[in-house]
């Protein structure tokens, strides 16, 4: 008797499919609507209220105008993009070789490395960021090392509470989510392609540039989607290791809403961030799709 083939694909429709689906999905969908969609809508509403605390106070777009024209916000936005982009580039510079190593050269170390990446990510993020403070701080490990080895006399100032610190912390924090999609994409590449290219005379550089990267590109795009947006809105990392010159958008929102009780501008800024991140995600998704190869 022939082995039964696994059927992979969309589930076959069942009798009375509408009814069954409705029954099962009613609770989750209702919860999503009540606890997810409604708050979003309420936030949008608040951002258009004249008095954010009084829903009957009429509509206005003033908050949006404030938020979008405030030079401080502009500056913070630019800083945020620069920091996030730098961190992104840095992570790609590490993740791509790392993923490549894991897939092609690691052998028995491939799985432990993957495990290490996953486990590292499940540890408490606050704790991890705090640990970086101990490393980069004025009395931290790095400075201690530099001073005891007489490389410097005084603590290096720019290690902490500067954009540098934020970039390091962000990069370390999001490295796992950057590496894993790239790793998955590379794993799907047919290894015979590399042999074929070697047979035709390709050296290491050509193999990487013309075979590895183009075929891993969809994974690289997915990584960027997964990571760039959270970095833009991250407020914990900068809050713990950034200085006043490296404030990021997430912090600004928190400042407005929690410290300033400025719900109008705060919610407007949040909404702007929401729209921006959705657009970015869609764009990146599009690019990833376009790059997908029909094998």
């Amino acid at each position: 008797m022939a082995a039964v083939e696994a059927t992979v694909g969309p589930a076959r429709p069942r009798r009375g499919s509408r009814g069954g689906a409705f029954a099962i999905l009613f609770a989750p969908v209702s919860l999503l609507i009540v606890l997810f969609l409604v708050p979003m809508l309420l936030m949008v509403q608040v951002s258009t209220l004249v008095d954010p605390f009084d829903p009957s106070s009429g509509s206005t777009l003033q908050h949006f105008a404030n938020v979008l024209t405030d030079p401080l916000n502009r500056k913070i936005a630019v800083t945020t993009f620069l920091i996030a982009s730098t961190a992104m580039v840095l992570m790609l510079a590490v993740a791509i070789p790392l993923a490549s190593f894991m897939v092609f050269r690691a052998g028995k170390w491939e799985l432990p490395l993957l495990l290490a990446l996953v486990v590292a990510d499940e540890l408490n993020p606050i704790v991890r960021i705090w640990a970086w403070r101990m490393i980069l701080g004025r009395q931290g490990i790095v400075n201690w090392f530099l001073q005891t080895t007489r490389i410097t006399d005084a603590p290096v100032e720019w290690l902490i509470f500067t954009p540098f610190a934020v970039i390091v912390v962000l990069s370390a924090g999001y490295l796992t989510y950057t590496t894993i999609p790239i790793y998955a994409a590379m794993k799907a590449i047919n290894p015979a392609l590399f042999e074929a290219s070697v047979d035709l005379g390709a050296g290491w550089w050509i193999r990487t540039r013309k075979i590895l990267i183009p075929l891993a590109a969809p994974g690289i795009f997915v990584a960027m989607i997964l990571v760039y947006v959270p970095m833009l809105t991250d407020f914990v990392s900068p809050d713990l290791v950034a200085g006043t010159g490296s404030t990021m958008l997430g912090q600004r929102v928190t400042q407005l809403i929690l410290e300033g009780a400025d719900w109008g501008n705060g919610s407007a800024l949040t909404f702007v961030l929401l729209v921006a991140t959705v657009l970015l995600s869609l764009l990146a998704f599009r690019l990833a799709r376009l790059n997908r190869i029909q094998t």
Partner: protein
Amino acid sequence: MDGGLAGGEGGLVAEAARPAGARAAVSAPAGVRVRRGVTLGGRALFILAVLAILFGPLLILVVFSFNDSTILSFPWAGFTTRWYRQAFEDPQLRTALLNSIVVSFIVAPLCLVIGTLTAFGLTRFRFRGRGAIAGLVGAPLVLPWLVIGIAALLAYRHQWVDLDLGLNTVVATQVICTFPLVTAIVAAQLFRFDRLQEEAAVDLGCSRLQVLRHVILPHIAPAVAAGAIFALTWSFNNFEISFFTIGFQQTFPIWVYSTVRDSEHLPVVNAISTVISVVQVLLIWAALKLMRARGGATAPGVDTRPARGAA
């Protein structure tokens, strides 16, 4: 093997290759030659660097948690466990820990149930609007937590809603953000599941419920369990959502956050963090073991019964 060939030059010559000593299937290792340039040492260095980035900070934390000094740095002032004692005597920390545990132990089962239900609903039925619902379910995973947290805060404190912030609001919003993760994990497993096994069971007389209990659930149990552990850890670790929806109370991450910003007795943070991290590592390791255990056992649909009759 004698040299030379049987048959004419240019013709389709056949010569049986001499059977070598090995009859077993030999899979040759990848034939691409290793570059002489990048040495074994260079690669090992790279890997060590990556591991250092991932775990170094944590190791520092652990080391300093035993350092008998209030300054969180070298030089080493002696071994002590007093920070651990202080940690467990700190009432604020105890409350925060308790809150975290309570919240995560409520959130995880809720996510399990809702997430698994959703996974079933999305993979086993076909209906119009399925794509839209799937999108809705995936949305909390895609949108930034900052946005979700702020929106939740504004909604709860909105005049029309006027809910006090506390652990219940934390639970509510965390569940919404986490159950899609469980859905994703379980759906992936359901996707791979061979429906024919189910139909075979029905054919043999099982009721729908029995099919569920005896055929489907055992198959997805590891994925569900793994999802539960991830949900537990995620909830415990969660900062953003909790931060905005908890009001004046604290969970463990929030306690760490406020302590390192304002307070003095920082080594306590190291001590308790070490403990928590160890527990989490063990939990995650168990979860991954669970996921792999089933992954290898039986591929869906493979006929594992002994062959009958002529091949």
